């Protein structure tokens, strides 16, 4: 699969405290990943994990403190001229989380789409712009008559579709969707998740789907990136990761997702859960060492001294190799790479931290 976007050691720090303080908040630290064409990558994590900051770094709303982002092979920090900036924001648009504040209440919902078209595709005439606005509205499942409505006349789900329509108007390559369904009712979410898969399949758009809901990530995404405290904990094809999570945090996350169809947890599992009260840390002036250490039941000495790096799990290749030798279908292609940032997992131990 051709690589569309790549982040290398992306880092973003924020200065906090008064003008005299020298404390920095490490929102994103040394994050590296890639997104290919026609794929949906889920970036999952809790609040404070840095996932929204990553999105904003990719959207060029923030400048990185370190590392770089390459889009189609070229660094986005080199984008200087207004024309190039416009072009990038057209190729990599963002869809926001809050349907109630992402549209300007004073204008009709067509306003955003028409402005986008005016700015990014100046070659179109006014009539062509109208036609294109109708087209994208239809692609996202809104009738063309919706164009004349005001935001307060639309439901939350419809407003989110307007957000996607705006993103589509520029024929983008990659849509950055920052928790697009979190604020919608459960029965409406599926509609938008289906829209995203449709966009990937029929419009050929890649999507970076940022969420804290692993179940919805599974429903739409091809690959999963799990973030914790500003760093990547685990990466891999989503079915593989969910079937066999390697990082203790991923295991914790999965165990905490309520699954109505699963049987009720045993008394022992519940008792264990009562003890687990930790929350992701705010990473201010961190020291070396794994950031999940305070909550990890399987930590070793080195976890407190050396910050784990994201590495490909050699075990995957070995397993794939053994499977091939036995005549079974191997899955060891590039896309099937599993990466984990955990000393214990990298040492080959089969981690079983949370059931």
């Amino acid at each position, binding site marked *: 699969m051709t690589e569309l976007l790549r982040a290398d050691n992306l880092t973003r720090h924020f200065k906090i405290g008064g003008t005299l303080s020298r404390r920095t908040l490490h929102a994103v630290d040394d994050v590296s990943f890639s997104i290919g064409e026609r794929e949906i990558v889920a970036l999952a994590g809790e609040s404070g994990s840095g996932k929204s900051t990553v999105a904003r770094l990719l*959207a060029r*709303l923030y400048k990185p403190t370190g590392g770089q982002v390459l889009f189609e092979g070229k660094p986005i920090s080199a984008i200087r001229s*207004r024309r190039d*900036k*416009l072009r990038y*924001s*057209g190729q990599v*648009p*963002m869809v*926001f*989380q*809050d349907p109630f*504040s*992402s*549209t*300007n*209440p*004073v*204008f009709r919902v067509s306003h*955003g789409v028409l*402005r*986008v078209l005016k*700015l*990014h595709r100046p070659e179109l005439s006014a009539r062509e712009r109208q036609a294109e606005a109708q087209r994208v509205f239809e692609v996202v499942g809104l009738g063309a008559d919706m164009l004349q409505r005001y935001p307060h006349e639309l439901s*939350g789900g419809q407003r989110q579709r307007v*957000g996607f329509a*705006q993103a589509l108007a520029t024929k983008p390559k990659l849509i950055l969707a920052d928790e697009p369904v979190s*604020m919608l*009712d459960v029965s409406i979410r599926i509609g938008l998740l289906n829209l995203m898969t449709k966009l990937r399949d029929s419009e050929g758009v890649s999507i970076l789907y940022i969420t804290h809901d692993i179940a919805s990530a599974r429903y739409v995404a091809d690959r999963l990136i799990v973030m914790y405290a500003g760093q990547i904990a685990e990466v891999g094809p989503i079915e593989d990761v969910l079937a066999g999570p390697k990082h203790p945090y991923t295991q914790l996350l999965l165990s905490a997702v309520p699954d109505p169809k699963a049987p009720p947890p045993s008394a022992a599992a519940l008792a264990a859960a009562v003890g687990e009260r930790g929350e992701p840390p705010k990473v201010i002036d961190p020291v070396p060492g794994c950031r999940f250490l305070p909550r990890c039941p399987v930590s070793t000495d080195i976890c407190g001294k050396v910050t784990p790096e994201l590495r490909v799990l050699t075990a995957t290749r070995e397993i794939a190799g053994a499977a091939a030798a036995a005549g079974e279908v191997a899955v060891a292609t590039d896309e099937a790479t599993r990466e984990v940032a955990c000393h214990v997992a990298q040492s080959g131990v089969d981690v079983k931290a949370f059931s």
Partner: protein
Amino acid sequence: MRFLRAIRRNGKATTGAILLAVFVLLAMFPGLFAHKDPNAEIYPRNLGPSAQHLFGTTGLGQDLYAQAVYGTRQVLVIAFAAGLFTTLIAAAVGVAAAYLGGTWDGTLNLLTDVLLVIPLFPLLIVIAAYVHNSGTVVLIAVLTFTGWSYTARQLRSQALSLRNRDFLAAAKARGERAIYIIAVEILPTMSSLLVAAFLTNALYAVLFASSLQFVGLGDPNANSWGTMLYWAQNNEALQAGYYLQALVPGAAIALLGAAFALLNYAFDEITNPALRPVRGRQRTRRLAGLSRA
């Protein structure tokens, strides 16, 4: 529009609107209401109210009623012009400071604060006294220059609270320029606050302009309520018992000020839904939606 509906709905605002409409009519067609020349000093002096002179005459022999009616125009022109320009400058400075942030915010804030700290009335007096041509235009300019800082602060706070709304981030993300965002995306959403600011500034313009004229810093030959007060003072009207010479312009100023203040109630309502009248008429569908996170 929202504004008209809000005015109709609120009793105080309706009263204010009617009052203002009356004054506007007086200003536009003074000849319809007063048939005597306000400047003619031909009548007997210091007369009390009568059939020929509704409010009596001044110490110089002018008809008080005619003066009051013809004086409306200058006052309204000053009120609207100063109110408008003050609000425009305040909006430009305040919203730009809030949206652009950083050094822009710092510099504009400094400018605003400096003007804010200087006591307004003494500044007005000093400037007005220094500028020898004390015509209407100068008055408006002086009022505008000294008055915009307070509103700028207010509008900046409001714009700051809007700054994190996603539709602004969306506008920036799609490539809009900052000027466009301020003018087209932010200001329209603040429209009720801007109108309220305009009304407040108009009110203060009336009061300050009249005060300046009262102390003699306006053109004493101009037709205005403030100058009427000036001449009444000159004439020692209150001491001598010619109360109407001071009361009439005073009441006119008070009524116009009240009109602006009453109208303002309607806009408080728009910007702060909690102040809306509870009996029966409320947009509560939103309450149901608010139960969602």
